[in-house]
């Protein structure tokens, strides 16, 4: 066991996979000599050589498109999109190509590629360094969509993603790269070093894709969350004193509906939270499934606490971010309804 930040955990996963499987390569903008703008690949080029870890031109479609070519040839590219906000030029390659190669070729070709991208706001990045586009991936059959909330999960899930036979979108909540963040931007931040989920095994291990984690057990209401919002949920629970069950989805697609339904049938109430814009966000999908599966158990409407339907603002970041106050209010309203 070692203390790791989420950056170190992600790096450790790539390090282990580069070591273990010669078919793994890492590429992306600034990931080579420099080691990535978030330092996730620092030292890897030096250790494995420029043929295994290298810089790419600033063209996300090329990054993913080359990745598709490599993956169909038999390699296992793990590519980085510098910010999730910059995945849009690659959206065609991701959704129409990577996601479909296996199906449309009836299995002749497959695309075992991992596409890492830092996601979410809370770092004063403005509208082009803050977006949470997960719902744009969950609508796409053929993709898997993963978002860890801690170093220990990040490493295990990234190894599982790289080894997965199908394309995986791996969303890294950048606000908690260095430590959990409860949504109180004015509070002192604490690093992963002091958090139990910053304890990470040094060697190889996998955290199975498609399995949610009951982050906190509770009876009063089920909170569905992922990434940074898990800690916001935790803070809201602490502050309201409501005994909520917090489910950290970890994998959004395929979704672990079983764990969710079991919880909601128990608590009979559900609050869904995410940072992305509300309309057609992933919360909508969660609500659609939960209300269908748990309709006769539900005592109150399922509510969403989300980013507003507007571009992520710079100065008003904390008015935009769905913090523990807003989540707490939703919890109280739901529990008292």
């Amino acid at each position, binding site marked *: 066991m070692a203390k790791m930040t989420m950056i170190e955990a992600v790096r450790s996963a790539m390090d282990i996979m580069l070591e273990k499987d010669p078919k793994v390569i890492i590429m992306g903008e600034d990931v080579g000599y420099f080691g990535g703008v978030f330092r996730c690949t620092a030292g890897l080029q030096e250790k494995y050589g420029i043929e295994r870890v290298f810089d790419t031109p600033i063209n996300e479609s090329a990054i993913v498109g080359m990745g598709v070519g490599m993956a169909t040839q038999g*390699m296992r590219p793990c590519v980085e999109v510098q910010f999730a906000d910059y995945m849009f030029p690659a959206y065609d390659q991701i959704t129409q190509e990577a996601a479909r190669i296996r199906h449309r070729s*009836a299995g002749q070709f497959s695309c075992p590629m991992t596409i890492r991208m830092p996601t979410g706001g809370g770092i004063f990045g403005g509208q082009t360094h803050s977006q949470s586009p997960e719902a744009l991936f969950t609508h796409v059959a053929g993709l898997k969509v993963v978002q860890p909330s801690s170093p220990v999960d990040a490493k295990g899930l990234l190894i599982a993603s790289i080894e997965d036979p199908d394309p995986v979108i791996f969303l890294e909540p950048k606000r908690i790269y260095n430590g959990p963040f409860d949504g109180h931007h004015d509070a002192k931040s604490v690093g992963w070093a002091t958090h139990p989920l910053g304890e990470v095994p040094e060697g190889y291990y996998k955290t199975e894709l498609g399995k949610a984690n009951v982050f906190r057990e509770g009876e009063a209401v089920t909170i569905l969350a992922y990434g940074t919002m898990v800690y916001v949920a935790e803070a809201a629970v602490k502050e309201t004193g409501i005994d909520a069950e917090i489910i950290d989805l970890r994998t959004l697609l395929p979704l672990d509906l079983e764990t969710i339904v079991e919880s909601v049938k128990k608590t009979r109430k559900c609050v869904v939270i995410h940072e992305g814009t509300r309309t057609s966000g992933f919360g909508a999908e969660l609500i659609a499934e939960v209300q269908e599966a748990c309709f006769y158990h539900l005592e109150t409407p399922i509510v969403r606490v989300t980013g507003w339907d507007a571009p992520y603002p710079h100065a008003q970041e904390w008015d935009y971010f769905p913090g523990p106050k807003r989540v707490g209010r939703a919890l109280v309203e739901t529990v008292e309804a």
Partner: protein
Amino acid sequence: MPIKINFPTPSARPGETPDFSRYDFPEPGALPVPPLDITAEDTLEYANSLIRVLDDDGNAVGPWADYLGEEGNDDVLLEGLRDMLKMRAIDARMLNAQRQGKTTFYLQCTGEEAIGCAFQRQLNKGDMNFPTYRQQSLLVAGGYPLKDLFGQYYQNENDPLGGRQLPTLHSAKDYGFFTISGNLGTQYVQAVGWAMAAALTGTDNIAAAWIGDGATAASDYHSAMVTAAVYKPPVILNVVNNQWAISSFNGIAGGTAATFANRGVGYGIPSIRVDGNDFLAVLAATKWATERTRNSHGPVVIEWVTYRVAAHSTSDDASAYRPKDEADAWPLGDPVERLKQYLIQRGKWSEDRHKQGEAEIMDEVIAVQKESEALGTFINPQYLSPSAIFEGVYEEMPEHLKRQRQEMGA
């Protein structure tokens, strides 16, 4: 003073006289064979001229003919002619079959047969084409079973893709034919990645990317060009300039501003321009390009100049936007006729043998077609498992797809 801008228009529209005077092609044999490690800059003359071997009298002339040598011997060329005839027979039969409602859709490659048929001959086992929908000649010349081809056209139990794809969007890994995307351009850069992987994993395989003149405008053309210029992987970047993109002439893709090969030079990639209706020129240029890439000299752009004789597809009516007789006016002629003339001239072929050959090949094609039709066509569709919809979305079917399959009742 108001500023003027430009809206390119083709030289002739329906009712007007076809006009290709914008082209000034050199005589066959005019260009030398450059060294394999030529720089991009030095290919500029090749990019703005045209590599040709067959002259108007059916002679093979010039340095490229010599360079081709035994690889262009009569046996090879006779086989090549047969491949082209087979391709043309399939085109004819499938146009008919679509008109009869037996398939939903077909795309002819008439007039462009030489490109795929000659190119494919120069590839090795393990090389990979990233074709467009108009490169079925690569499959035909590569020995892909006609049974599989027709199976997909008719979407019956012989369809290797189980009905998932349009009839013309094939996938044949074992024949070096990548799964075709309907989205233009995307595969050009995939070919670059594949070629990089081929090199990185220590093979000596190369990739061949294919794109139409119209689709060079697509973003991923650029993705491919930049990455090929940077990493110099073993990839041949083919541009099939057949003058038209559905109803848009190639000026709408920038083709009147510069040649497509010239654009390659701009990126710093050695680029040549070749008469695509000249089987020997295609064979020779491909020999050069494959040798170059296989010997670690990096990528090469080839602009194949040709003409799309048929309508864009069976959904299209070309007479609505171009002169009916434009194909006849095409200055580079017909690839089948030109190769035939050459072989006759050499005493290896005759008009009679040609007729006979055509008939034999047509019979062969019809025989397979009939067999395939017996298994079901779109008039008489045979049950293809609906649950194939859910298979292969992922390697392992996740729960939600199992639930949906159940909901479907399949």
